[in-house]
C-alpha cells in the first residue's frame, strides 16, 4: 500500500506570513450528547477534557474541539485513528453516538508569522484581535466553510479536502 498523501502534498507559500499545508492528520468526527461516559471516552483518545462551547483542548499532537452542541472534532496522529475508533467503540458501547474517520476528508493549513492574523482577516469574518487562545471558530474562508484556532504563534485552519487548492491559493494571495 502507498503512503497516505494529503490534498496538496505539503504545499507552502511565503508572503508576509508563511502558509503551509500540514497532514495527513488523523481526525474523527464524534457526535454524542449528554453521555456520562463521554468525558472518559475523549480523555482516552486525546488525553484532554471535554471542551466547553467554542473551545478546543490541545494536548501535544492531539486535541478535541467543540464543533456543535452534539459534535466534537478529535485530532490525533493519522496512524492512530483505527485504534482511537476502537477505543471509542469500547468506551461508548451501548450508547447512542457516531464516530467516523474524517482524516481524509479534510485539509489542514498553518498560517504563521507576526502578521498571520492579517491574512485571515482578509478572508474570514472573525474578530481575530479578540480570538482567545484555545477558542475554536467555525466560520468561512472566502466562499467555503472552515474552522480555525490560534496555536503556537500562528493559526491552524481546517477545510474540506476538495477545496484545499482554492483555500491555499486564497491564503497565498492574501499574504502578498
Amino acid at each position, binding site marked *: 500500500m*502507498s503512503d497516505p498523501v*494529503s490534498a496538496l502534498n505539503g504545499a507552502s507559500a511565503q508572503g508576509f506570513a508563511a502558509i503551509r499545508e500540514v497532514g495527513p492528520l488523523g481526525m474523527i468526527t464524534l457526535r454524542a450528547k449528554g453521555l456520562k461516559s463521554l468525558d472518559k471516552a475523549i480523555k482516552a483518545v486525546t488525553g484532554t477534557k471535554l471542551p466547553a462551547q467554542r473551545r478546543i483542548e490541545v494536548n501535544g499532537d492531539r486535541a478535541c474541539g467543540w464543533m456543535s452542541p452534539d459534535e466534537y472534532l478529535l485530532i490525533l496522529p493519522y496512524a492512530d485513528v483505527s485504534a482511537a475508533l476502537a477505543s471509542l467503540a469500547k468506551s461508548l458501547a451501548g450508547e447512542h453516538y457516531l464516530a467516523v474517520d474524517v482524516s*481524509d476528508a479534510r485539509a489542514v493549513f498553518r498560517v504563521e508569522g507576526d502578521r498571520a492574523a492579517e491574512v485571515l482577516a482578509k478572508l474570514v469574518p472573525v*474578530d481575530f484581535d*479578540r480570538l482567545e487562545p484555545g477558542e475554536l471558530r467555525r466560520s468561512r474562508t472566502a*466562499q467555503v466553510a472552515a474552522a480555525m484556532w490560534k496555536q503556537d504563534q500562528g493559526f491552524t485552519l481546517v477545510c474540506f479536502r476538495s*477545496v484545499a487548492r482554492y483555500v491555499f491559493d486564497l491564503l497565498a494571495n492574501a499574504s502578498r
Partner: protein
Amino acid sequence: MSTRLAKGGRLIDRTAPVEFTFNGKRLKGFQGDTLAAGLLANDQVMVGRSFKYHRPRGIVASGPEEPNALVNLGLGARLEPNQRTTTTELFDGLDSTSQNHWPSLEFDVGVVNNYVARFLPAGFYYKTFIHPRPFWKHVFEPIIRRSAGLGKAPTEGDADRYEQAYAFCDVLVIGAGVAGLKAAKAAADKGQRVILLEQAPTLGGRAPVDQTEVDGQPVEAWLSAMESDLAARDNVTIRTRTCGFGVYDHGYVLADERVADHTPGDGRPKHRLWRIRAGRIVSATGAIERPLSFAGNDIPGVMLAGAMRDYVVNYAVSPGDRTVVVTNNDSAYQTALALKAAGLDVPAILDARDQATGPLPEAARAAGIRVLTGKAIAKVKGAKRVTGVTVCAQAGEGAVQEEIPCEAVAMSGGWSPVVHLWSHCGGKLLWDDTISAFVPDPARPPLNHDGSAMVEVVGAASGDLTLDGKPTIPPVWVMPQGAPIAYRNKMWLDYQNDVKVSDVQLAAREGYLSVEHTKRYTTLGMATDQGKLSNINGLAILADAQGSQIPQVGTTTFRPPYTPVTIGALAGESRGEIFQPLRRTPMHEAHEAAGAYFEPVGLWRRPYCYPRAGETHEQAVHREVTNTRTNLGLLDASTLGKIIVKGPDAGRFLDMLYTGVMSTLPVGKCRYGLMCNEQGFLSDDGVVARIDEDTWLCHTTSGGADRIHAWMEDWLQCEWWDWKVYTANVTEQYAQVAVVGPNARKLLQVLGGMDVSKETLPFMQWADGTLAGFPVRVYRISFSGELSYEIAVPASHGAAFWAACQEAGKALGAMPYGTECLHVMRAEKGFIMIGDETDGTVIPQDLGLDWAISKKKADFLGKRGQERTYLANPDRWKLMGFETLDGSVVPDGAYIVAEGVNANGQRNTQGRVTSTYYSPTLKRGIAMGLLKQGPARVGEVVEFNTVAGGTVKAKVRDTVFFDKDGEKQNV
C-alpha cells in the same frame, strides 16, 4: 483665466512637481494636488461636456459631490471611466481624457442638442421613441447609446488586484473633521476600540479652510495635537482615503479604501473593501454646499463657494482675477475674504437676503468688498467660460440693473447635511427651517437589534453647520424668484444628467406628484453623483410647482453606496483561479495529466471525456462507451455523495426519507432508493448500503450531497428532534472508482486481496477488504448494466489506487471514461438521472418507478403529496423510450407536438424529451421523454420538434434499450 498663485497652498508640496496629461496635453502640478486642482492651475476651466446637451462644463466642487469633472483615468488595462477629478490625487504620469464629446472637447457636434433643447424636454425618451415599437431597439437605442453615455468602458482586463478585509470595533466614526475627531477621542478615552474613517488623504475636514480657531486654539495646532493624540493610542485605528459608503443592519458598514489609486503599479492592491462590524456608528460626514439656480449656473467658471475656497487655500489655485460671489448665507463671505487675502479681486458679493449683518459680511465690507443685498444673478455671460454676470433684484423678474465682468462666480445656496449614512438603514429626517435643509431626526434613528440607535450623527451632518451651531439660511430656490421661462430654461439642477428647473416644473405640470416618479421621469439625481448637489434644489422646485411644502414632498430614498465603488473592490479576491471554489477529487491531477475535458457538476469539475489526439469529444465518448461495454472502463466516482446515518432510530428515519423501505435491508446489502420532498416531487436518488445493525451509508447524487445532508439534519433538528439518529457527510473521506465492464472482476483479481466472485459478492452487496494492499470497501452495484464494482478507498490513497487500477488494467483493455459515457450507458439501460428526468415537477410515478415506492408504509416524505389529484391523474406525462424512425438523435429539449395551437399561437404539446443520445452500442439515436398517457401508447409514432423547424418522427417504446434481461451485469 485660472492659474497657480505664487504662494500658499497648504496641501501641495512645491518641491515635488509632477507631470500629467489631459487630452494628451502635458501639464504640471504638485504632489498634494487633486487632479481638479492641477487642471485649474493650468487654466483647464472646461473639463467635459454635459450628458444630454453636450454643454461645456467646468469643475463645480472640490469633493465627491462633483457632477461635471469626470474623466477617463489611466490607459489600457488601467483605464477607469467616470473618475472624479476632485477626489483623484495627482501623481506623476497620470493620464486623463475628458468624456462625452465627439470629436473633441473644444468642438463637439452634440452641442447642437443645446439649440434644439426645446425638443428634448423632461421625459423626452419616453415620449419620443415609444412609436413605432421596433424603432426603439433597432434605430433609436443604438444612436442614443453612441451619442450619450459618459466614460468609455474598459476593453482590457484590470491590471490591478483588489482585496477585502474584515474589521471590528466598538465605535466606528465616519468622517474625520472636527466633529469626527472629537467623537473618536471621546470614545477612545472610554477605552473603546475605535475605527476612524476619512475619505480624504488628510484629517480635519473643512476646518483648516473655514476656521481660524478650534476650542480656542489655532486650527492647525489643534489638528496636529489631535492627530498625534489619536495616533498614539492602541485602541484607535485611523484609515484615510477610506470612504464609509454604506450602513447596513446590525452595525455592518462597508468602506472602500483607495490603497494605491495614487501609486498605480506599486504592487499593492488598488482598493481594499472593508467589511466592518461596529457596536455603534458615528456619522460625522459633514455637509455639502448647494448650488443656486440662476441662468447659466453651469458655465465653466461657476463654482461652489466652499470649493473655490478649497482651491485657493489648499492648492493655491486662483479661479480667475475677478470673482463675483453670490449667496443666501454668510459662509460664502469666507470665500470672498480668502480671495482677497490671496490678492485677487472680488468685484461684488450679491446676497439674495435683504440684510447681511453678521461678522463675516462686516469683515467683507471692512475688506473693501462691495456687498449688494437683495440682489441676484440674472444671467451668467459666457459660453466655454464665464465672462461676466448681469445683476438684478432677487425679488424681481430679472430686469438687468448692472453688468459685472468677471472670470469666475462663487455661489452658495446653503448647505445640506450629509444624511446618507443615517438614512441607509431607515433613520428619518426632519426639515429644519433655520438652515433650510433636512437634518436627522434624533427621535427616529436607525435601530439595532435591541431597539437602540445604531447611528449617531455629529457636527455639520446633524445640522450644526458651524462649530458654533446653526446659522440662519433662508430658502432661495430660484434666482431671481420671478425668473421667466427663458431663464428657468438655463438653470441647471442636475448638471450631470442635464436636468433644469424648467424640466421639474414641466413634470409637475404633467401630473407627477411623487418625488420618486419625478426623479425617474426627469432623471434628476440619477447620475453617478446620485444628486448630491441637485436633490434638495429639485425637491424645492417640485414642492413649489405643486403648491406644497418640501417636507410634504419628502426625499427620494438614500441607498448605498454613498459614492460609486469600483466593481473590482466588490469582487475582491474573487477573480482568476480563485473566482469561485473549484472542488477537486483526489484524482483530479491524474485526469488533467490524461488530457481530460472537464465539465462542472456543482462546484466539482468532473472529466466529461478523455479525448485522444485527433479525437473530437463525441468520438471520445463513443470510444469510451464501446470500450467499457466490451472491455473495461474506469470512472472517478469520488464526487458521489456519501452520508453515514446511525442510531437506534436510523432505520425508521430512512423509511421516512426514502420512498422505499430501508429498515429491512440486511447488513451487507445494498438497495436503490428515491427521496422526495414533502410535495412528492423526486429530489434525489442513490444506493443505500446497510453497514451494521445501527448504521447505513446513503449514496446521493454528486450535486446533491450537501443538500441532502442538510435536508436530513433539518428533519432531525427541527421535526424529529427526539429521534436517536446521527448523520455525518463523509463524501470527501473516500475516493471512489467505478470498475465497469466484462473485465471488471478480472481487474480486481489482478489487484488481489479479496474474493469478489459472483458467489461471495453477488449483485447489490458490499464487502470490506483490501485490493493491492489498499483498504477498500467494494460495492457491487451498476449504473451501466455491465458487471461493475464501485470501490471506495480513503481519499489520501485515491490517486495511488486510481494509478494502480490503470496499471493493472492495461492488459485488460482498461480506459478511463467520463461523465458523458456514464450518461449514455445509463440511458441505454433506461436508468434515470436526477436533473435530466427530473426538474422539480416530476414524481417517481411519472418515471415508472412505482416499484421503488412502498405501498405498505404508513408514511414517508412525499406520500401525501403524491396522492393529490393532480399528481395522481392518469393523464400525466410519463417516461417512455423513443426511437426515431430515421435513427437520428432527437434534439435536446425538444417537445412532442400535439394537434392544434394554444392561445399564443404556439403548437400544443403532449410531452418532451428528457435524455437523448447517440448510442454507440445500438448505433442509433435513443431518447427518453415524458409523454401524456405514455404506457398506453407503445408502438405509436409521435413527433418531436427540431431546432431547424419541422419535426422528427419517433416510435414510442419502453425505456430499456439494451440488455433488457440484465445478463451482462449478472455474471
